[in-house]
């Protein structure tokens, strides 16, 4: 099956049914391996055991932005190419992105209290991620408010592309402004500054979280295709009842 074949919702459903069990199993295995590595990793020389929060905070934060990136590509698919699965993909990603952003905010807050002495600070990084979370909630509200999925898709696509401006602001906020949040220590010019004993578990958890997103996204897309079939059949049923 070629990639272009997946543009057909029926073929996509068959593909999703086939790969989802394997993806779910791979996610579970990698998550278990990652957690074993996390709890075998040494404490940080400054932060002590609280560094363990990093292993869920950082992958969630990366995914909060990555998911918006996926939605932005899907938005282009909706607006430019009117790809049949583009708005299905965008809609399915929203609650998952919101959940990862929520995890990033809460775990960051729980990490901040013992390290910074505060749960929250209105600095550029924290505030821009909070804005990202509110944008996710806004998109969820929009998808629920508009009855016609194709109309909702166009509005959501425009908002998603405008909201993508926030992604570089989040990424570079720690460089552009004086923030309490530390600067990038993994994805930076000059290479990571984290010791390999902490970096390896972090990267395993990042891959595990990415697989988790892929699994949940495929499953949510499958559900959205079924939901649209239900909607079509209900409309047919209503028109048959009127005739």
């Amino acid at each position: 099956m070629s990639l272009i074949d997946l543009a057909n919702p029926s073929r996509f459903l068959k593909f999703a049914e086939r790969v989802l069990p394997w993806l779910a199993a791979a996610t579970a295995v990698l998550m278990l391996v990652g957690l074993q590595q996390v709890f075998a990793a040494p404490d940080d020389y400054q932060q002590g055991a609280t560094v363990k929060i990093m292993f869920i905070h950082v992958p969630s934060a990366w995914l909060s932005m990555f998911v918006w990136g996926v939605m932005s590509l899907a938005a282009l698919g909706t607006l430019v190419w009117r790809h049949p699965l583009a708005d299905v993909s965008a809609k399915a990603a929203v609650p998952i992105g919101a959940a990862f952003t929520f995890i990033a905010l809460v775990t960051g807050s729980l990490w901040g209290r013992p390290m910074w002495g505060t749960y929250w600070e209105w600095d550029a990084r924290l505030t821009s991620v909070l804005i990202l979370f509110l944008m996710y909630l806004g998109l969820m509200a929009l998808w629920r408010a508009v009855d016609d999925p194709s109309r909702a898709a166009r509005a959501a696509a425009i908002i998603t592309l405008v909201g993508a401006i926030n992604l570089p602001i989040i990424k570079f906020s720690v460089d552009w402004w004086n923030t309490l949040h530390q600067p990038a220590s993994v994805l930076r010019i000059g290479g990571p500054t984290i010791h390999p004993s902490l970096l390896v578990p972090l990267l395993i958890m990042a891959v595990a979280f990415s697989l988790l997103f892929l699994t949940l996204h495929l499953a949510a897309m499958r559900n959205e295709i079924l939901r649209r079939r239900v909607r079509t059949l209900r409309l047919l049923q209503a028109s048959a009842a009127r005739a």
Partner: protein
Amino acid sequence: MTLGQHATFIIAAYAIAATVVAGLIVWVVADYRRQRAILHDLEIAGMKRRSAPQASRS
């Protein structure tokens, strides 16, 4: 392995993350079952999509 004096924060972070991820999994699985059940009921009621394959029309 000891989590030290900040164990509460570490355990709370992992517990909240696990709860949210579990919630996502439950939502996806429950939504799938609900949509399948509704589709099944509609098909029993005789409703078929025009683009549905012929084999499934019987």
